């Protein structure tokens, strides 16, 4: 099949899969679309069977890693970690909205870094919303903070974001080296977020209060879940020294938090299987095959001509900006799958610059990318009456500054550590 036609077919399959994912239906149509797209591309010869098998084999360990992390996060929820965090926020705020925002920052950054952005978006945000409401303070700054930090704090560890897992697999960085290179960029992006959010919401945060809200009964933090998390993190840190792949550490963590719950029948094997979100895993694999078809038929060489190959500061800045643009055009998962293999020959710093772009960039819109926002409008799944100019304005403040600050500190860290 001519390369041009194969590329067009692959891009069509990609667009179809993204459209199915954006509808966000009750049924796993996005996984169905991804698999159908991948099968059609192989059937018409846009991608050989061997290459498809190769792509799946490549993604396999990453997808397994993801499954283990999802089960671990679900275990933490089951043990009551998130409800307890709500109690910590309520008590620690001592009636001050500004102190509450500082605590939300700390908790959202920690949850995102350790349990991934999914946990912050799905599990922590409702808790923060409820906590602010119970404290009789405006939930607006705190929900915005969760939403922003789910993206911008997801730079720190390979486990913080699926994009990081995908990239981690292609570099030869150890878990600790990855974290060491990303700690300063994460701090820089968080500093940008704090400055922007605390000023943007100065009115909400500075509202006078006559009385401190009644203090809540504080739920004890689930010690077992915290111990499992701490041991899992320690395992990640030691994994390269003792020669174990981090995926096994994640699997051990998932098993450790699930086994006692299974034994006391607090959960079932079926529920654990669902917690691993099998349709999401299938979606990632299908998407991987589709992107491989597009990349092999000309998308990769097109990306290569655009993306700088060096790791000097201007190169890294351009890589981060282009990655942020692509993440907004096609969402960050496809953007990562397209860009990481292209950036990989440029070295670890180039790959990490891609991650700064695809992780921070989605904050430009509240649904992660302009593409999703537009698709949702086109498909009428978005409520048109809602005013979200505020979020877009906030994104316009934080994203460019975060990209630049994060990339400069990545460049500094790479000078010292690589």
């Amino acid at each position: 099949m001519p390369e041009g036609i194969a590329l067009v077919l692959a891009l069509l399959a990609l667009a179809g899969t993204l459209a199915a994912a954006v509808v966000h239906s009750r049924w796993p149509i996005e996984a169905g679309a991804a698999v159908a797209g991948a099968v059609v591309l192989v059937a018409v010869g846009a991608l050989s069977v061997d290459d498809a098998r190769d792509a799946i084999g490549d993604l396999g360990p990453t997808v397994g890693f993801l499954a283990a992390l999802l089960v671990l996060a679900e275990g933490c929820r089951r043990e009551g970690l998130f409800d307890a965090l709500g109690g910590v926020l309520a008590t620690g705020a001592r009636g001050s909205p500004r102190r509450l925002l500082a605590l939300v920052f700390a908790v959202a950054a920690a949850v995102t870094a350790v349990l991934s952005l999914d946990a912050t978006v799905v599990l922590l945000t409702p808790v923060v919303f409820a906590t602010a409401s119970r404290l009789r303070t405006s939930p607006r700054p705190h929900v915005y903070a969760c939403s922003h930090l789910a993206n911008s704090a997801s730079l720190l560890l390979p486990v913080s974001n699926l994009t990081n897992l995908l990239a981690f697999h292609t570099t030869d960085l150890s878990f600790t080296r990855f974290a060491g290179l990303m700690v300063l960029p994460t701090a820089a992006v968080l500093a940008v977020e704090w400055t922007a959010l605390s000023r943007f919401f100065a009115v909400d945060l500075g509202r006078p209060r006559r009385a401190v809200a009644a203090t809540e009964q504080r739920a004890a933090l689930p010690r077992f879940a915290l111990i499992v998390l701490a041991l899992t993190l320690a395992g990640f840190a030691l994994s390269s020294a003792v020669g174990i792949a981090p995926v096994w550490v994640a699997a051990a963590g998932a098993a450790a938090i699930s086994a006692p719950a299974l034994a006391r029948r607090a959960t079932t094997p079926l529920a654990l299987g669902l917690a691993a979100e099998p349709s999401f895993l299938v979606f990632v694999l299908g998407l991987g095959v589709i992107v491989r078809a597009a990349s092999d038929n000309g998308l990769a060489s097109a990306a290569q001509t655009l993306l700088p190959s060096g790791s000097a500061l201007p190169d890294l800045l351009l890589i981060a900006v282009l990655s942020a643009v692509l993440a907004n055009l096609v969402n960050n998962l496809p953007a990562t799958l397209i860009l990481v293999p292209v950036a990989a020959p440029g070295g670890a710093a180039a790959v990490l610059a891609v991650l700064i772009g695809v992780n921070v960039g989605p904050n430009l819109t509240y649904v992660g990318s302009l593409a999703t926002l537009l698709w949702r409008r086109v498909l009428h799944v978005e409520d048109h009456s809602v005013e979200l100019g505020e979020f877009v304005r906030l994104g316009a403040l934080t994203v460019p500054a975060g990209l630049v600050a994060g990339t400069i500190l990545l460049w500094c860290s790479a000078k010292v550590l690589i």
Partner: protein
Amino acid sequence: MRALVWIVEDTWEATVAEAVGFLPADAEITLLHVAPQDVETLAAGARHGLLGRPRHHPPPGPPPPAPLREISEEAAAELLAEARSRLGRDARVESRRGRVEHEVVAAAEGADLLVLARDGDRSRLGPHSLGPQARFVVDHAPCQVLLVWPDTPPSVSTAPP
């Protein structure tokens, strides 16, 4: 006299206290709260941004987080009940959702007096003492307005020259 008292998180206690002082004993009082819809949309939108994750089935264990709308309605009902008991008088309560400033103006239709608190910089007199929402409501209110300082008003010396 029909009075509408706009109850906002953070400043509601001061608003209620002043309403008690200023409103005549025979006033028909309505306590109004408006939940901002965009915050819920934002939180839901962030979920849609997670590409490829289907909606969750209810898992075992502690109940999964309630839908934000439920949390928000419950919080509004509690806040209004607390405000009514602080008021210590008979009052109707009204809970709305949407664009806050527009909903307040719409709710004020037919009222004789709207009571609201300043929601901006409270350290000095001046235009910044009104945030964007209160500014819109004051500008568009279809009735008389009682504008409350949430704490002791700053001295005249803080006014710009």
